[in-house]
């Protein structure tokens, strides 16, 4: 069944979108959350054959018991701190009871009313440079379920399948679930904010080194909650929770789709069903999953097999001190150090060149020059070839090239030629300049001779210059530069042209 959609701008005119996200991060610890079985989210094990990374607990065998993985606790605390959260002095695991064949114990061990981290905030930056704070409600630890593969149906989903296979490798993988508070005020930027938020979580997780954060492998999974409320209404509308959104682009598209779909229903007098919805990458649509209500009864109770998690203040402070600089903070610091405008910085960030430019500046180039080369000439060549600019030359090459320009050894034009040689693998900028004979002609005698020759060849131009029409000098300068095969400083040539015209 095809959903009716309202035009996005019209939808925004009539309704205000409210967003909320649940992002699951698989921690790349060596072993699982509660047992010594190898963790498939660790890079060494991601391609393990089904049901090879298991032990009694992964299968929920009678008598097996969970034991908390200290490495996962440390990772979770670091992530909580990076999200600006408070770290609970005491947090507790609970049992979430429900029957499903991918859940070996038929309960999931998850933190419920006492999460390890709470009350944080994450800054995201949009393409136009705007910065938005996303409020974080909590980040809690839990274990992943196994993976079901439905065989025999047309869709690969449980409906219509003949049988299902279960892989318990993933059962017990450590997860941190990051839950936002409701995000209001997103307006037309809602889809972009959704994407930027998930990208920011990914950046933070990568900077901490706690997860591979590869969405296509499920290391990072986003559930997007969307609701609409008519303009002027205080109360939030009914929300849907879209699951299975496995790329940044999909996050953006799914939020846009839900806004348009819900708006069409509401405008037609209908009501939104509170439910989970599945995102379909191929068609760019969502379809209903199971109905979800706040009354789902998971019969939570404190997990009696585990003690409360009570990290020492020393551990928390040690982890806080070891935090890498937050991506947003770093961007702000670099922008200030470099004197870039918001748009200039955003260009650099969008092009993924922040690290490269930082390295180029460290190698001696001015920030402005580094930005000019990387987002200009090199970005153009990279674009033509369909490769990353950073793969063309090194930051050291760019810094050296700029030094040659600053010293007056190369003009900008000569520098571009030298860069072409560096890209072609002919060596460093100095080596290319030497090999290609690129260098500014600074022999005054040679320049004067060339100017005199050009003036003599174009007496009409000489006359115009002598009449005060200085702009006519361009033709003579051009001829001189041509005669010098471009290896002259055009500004100096201009001065000589004017001098010699006045003297003759």
């Amino acid at each position, binding site marked *: 069944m095809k959903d009716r959609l309202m035009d996005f701008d019209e939808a925004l005119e009539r309704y205000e979108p409210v967003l909320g996200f649940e992002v699951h991060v698989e921690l790349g610890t060596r072993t699982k959350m509660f047992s010594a079985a190898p963790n498939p989210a660790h890079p060494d094990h991601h391609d393990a054959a089904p049901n090879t990374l298991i032990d009694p607990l992964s299968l929920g065998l009678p*008598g097996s018991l969970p034991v908390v993985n200290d490495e996962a606790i440390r990772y979770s605390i670091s992530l909580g701190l990076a999200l600006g959260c408070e770290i609970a002095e005491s947090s507790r695991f609970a049992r979430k*009871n429900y029957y499903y064949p991918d859940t070996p114990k038929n309960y999931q061990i998850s933190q419920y009313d006492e999460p390890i981290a709470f009350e944080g905030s994450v800054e995201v930056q949009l393409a136009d440079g705007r910065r938005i704070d996303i409020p974080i409600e909590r980040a809690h630890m839990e274990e992943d379920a196994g993976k079901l593969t439905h065989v025999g149906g047309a869709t690969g989903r449980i409906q219509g399948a003949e049988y299902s296979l279960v892989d318990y490798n993933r059962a017990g993988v450590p997860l941190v679930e990051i839950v936002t508070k409701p995000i209001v005020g997103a307006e037309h930027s809602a889809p972009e904010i959704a994407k930027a938020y998930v990208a920011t979580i990914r950046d933070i997780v990568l900077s901490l080194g706690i997860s591979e954060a590869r969405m296509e492998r499920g290391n990072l999974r986003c559930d997007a909650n969307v609701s609409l409320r008519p303009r002027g209404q205080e109360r939030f509308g009914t929300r849907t929770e879209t699951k299975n959104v496995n790329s940044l682009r999909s996050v953006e598209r799914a939020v846009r789709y839900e806004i348009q779909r819900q708006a069409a229903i509401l405008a037609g007098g209908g009501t939104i069903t509170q439910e989970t919805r599945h995102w379909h990458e191929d068609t760019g649509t969502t379809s209903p999953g199971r109905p979800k209500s706040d009354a789902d009864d998971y019969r939570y109770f404190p997990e009696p097999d585990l003690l409360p998690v009570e990290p020492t203040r020393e551990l928390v402070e040690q982890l806080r001190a070891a935090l890498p600089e937050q991506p947003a903070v770093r961007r702000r610091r670099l922008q200030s150090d470099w004197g870039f405008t918001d748009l200039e910085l955003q260009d650099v960030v969008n092009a993924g060149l922040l690290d490269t430019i930082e390295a180029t500046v460290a190698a001696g180039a001015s920030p402005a020059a580094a930005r000019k080369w990387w987002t200009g000439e090199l970005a153009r060549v990279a674009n033509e070839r369909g490769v990353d600019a950073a793969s063309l030359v090194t930051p050291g090459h760019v810094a050296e090239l700029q030094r040659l320009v600053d010293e007056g050894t190369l003009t900008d034009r000569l520098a571009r030629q030298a860069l072409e040689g560096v890209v072609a693998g002919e060596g460093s900028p100095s080596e290319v300049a030497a090999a290609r004979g690129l260098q500014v002609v600074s022999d005054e005698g040679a320049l004067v001779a060339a100017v005199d020759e050009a003036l003599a060849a174009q007496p009409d131009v000489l006359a115009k210059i002598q009449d005060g029409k200085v702009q006519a000098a361009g033709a003579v300068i051009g001829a001189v530069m041509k005669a010098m095969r471009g290896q002259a400083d055009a500004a100096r040539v201009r001065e000589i042209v004017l001098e010699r015209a006045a003297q003759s």
Partner: protein
Amino acid sequence: MTSQDLTRSSGAELAGLLAAGDVSSVEATQAHLDRIAAVDGELHAFLHVNAGALDEARAIDDRRAAGERLHELAGAPVAIKDVLCTIGMPSTSGSRILEGWVPPYDATPVARLKAAGLVALGKTNMDEFAMGSSTEHSAYGPTRNPWDLERIPGGSGGGSAAAVAAFEAPFALGSDTGGSIRQPAAVTGSVGVKPTYGGVSRYGAIALASSLDQVGPVSRTVLDSALIHDVIGGHDPHDSTSLQREWPSFAAAAREGAASGSLAGLKVGVIRELDTDGIAADVAARFHETVALIERAGGEVVEVSMPSVEYAVAAYYLILPAEASSNLARFDSVRFGLRVEQGGTVEDVMAASREAGFGPEVKRRIILGTYALSAGYYDAYYGSAQQVRTLIQRDFDAAFAQADVLVSPSAPTTAFRLGEKIDDPLAMYANDITTIPANLAGIPGMSIPMGLGDDGLPVGLQLLAPHFEDVRLYRAGATIEALLAEQWGGILATKAPALTGGAR
């Protein structure tokens, strides 16, 4: 020495003969296997007899012959309650749903017995998933009391207690969630100990109620229980609730206590609420005689009050079913255990398998527990029960401020008749009033024989000590045991009528 003599020896005596080389492990094991073959047909204490027992015994004899230094109990046979996972032997927890299931791992207490060189004779009968006080709820038929085959042997660990009382094994492992070690010990004239919660690992014990379960020893003498406790106790990294502390030698304490013959300096608290009310007259009479004996031996007897005890049974029968309903969720036929093959969805198969695999008492408690944890009822039931638990812990704190150990009858009556209470769950539950408080508080408790009731059946004395003070139970228990044995001319177990027939 005849087989008869070997089975009549205590575990400590047998260990002495083995260590001295007077008896081989093969002989000791064979003697007990013969006894099992002779009497278990009428008792039904064992669900499974270890076919490899003689091979294991031979291996110990070979190691001793090779001059290896062995543990003091090496070569002695032991019986294992079926709640504990054992490699190579079915572990069913008395349930049809686990019929024939052989675990791939040993429970930690079992692994520790094996490491010490004890020889497992087999697995003992129990109420299904340890739910019951009579062993009548075993899916494989009841065990009978060796003192009177028409009587129950207590429960849930009726199999271990009957095996020990009938000289089929010198000692056994049990598990005690609300009295499942102490009450069977009391009604079979044996000794049983529930250690401090966390004193013995629960890893590999098929969970009933995780916050209450504790594995412990069953034997005919206090010293024998102490010897086993020394082997199975201590921290286990596989159980998060296992205590990290150094424990004194319980065997040394038991030997001291037996040798001293005096309780001078020991303050013994009599729990007013468990003294006479609800206690059968003959049991109360034996109890008062024993208290008088304690006073004669130098003990200072004081009366203590535990006003919250009257709520203990109600609280227990909310907490236990709540935790059990979750612990038993894993028995869904997907990964192990009984599967009723039928068409339909996986949920249909799960439901049919659980319907066929669980007995009525298990279903009753799953329903109770599921209800108690339901949203809207949680606070009223599970929440209130946890508050009662706190009150009982406070009662114990106050009582132990006045006394070093507390005493009460272990059970309100002598063994009742098979079938007498099977259709009256509330009467069955009320029977646990004496033993439940220790589980709710997590403190250690012991039952030792203190004579016979008017019906000629054994009556047990319960001793309780504060957290971590299990050692007090062994010292005081051994003293009282020695004084009583002097009166009787031997331990009570030797007074049981001979079993004659019913070869397996």
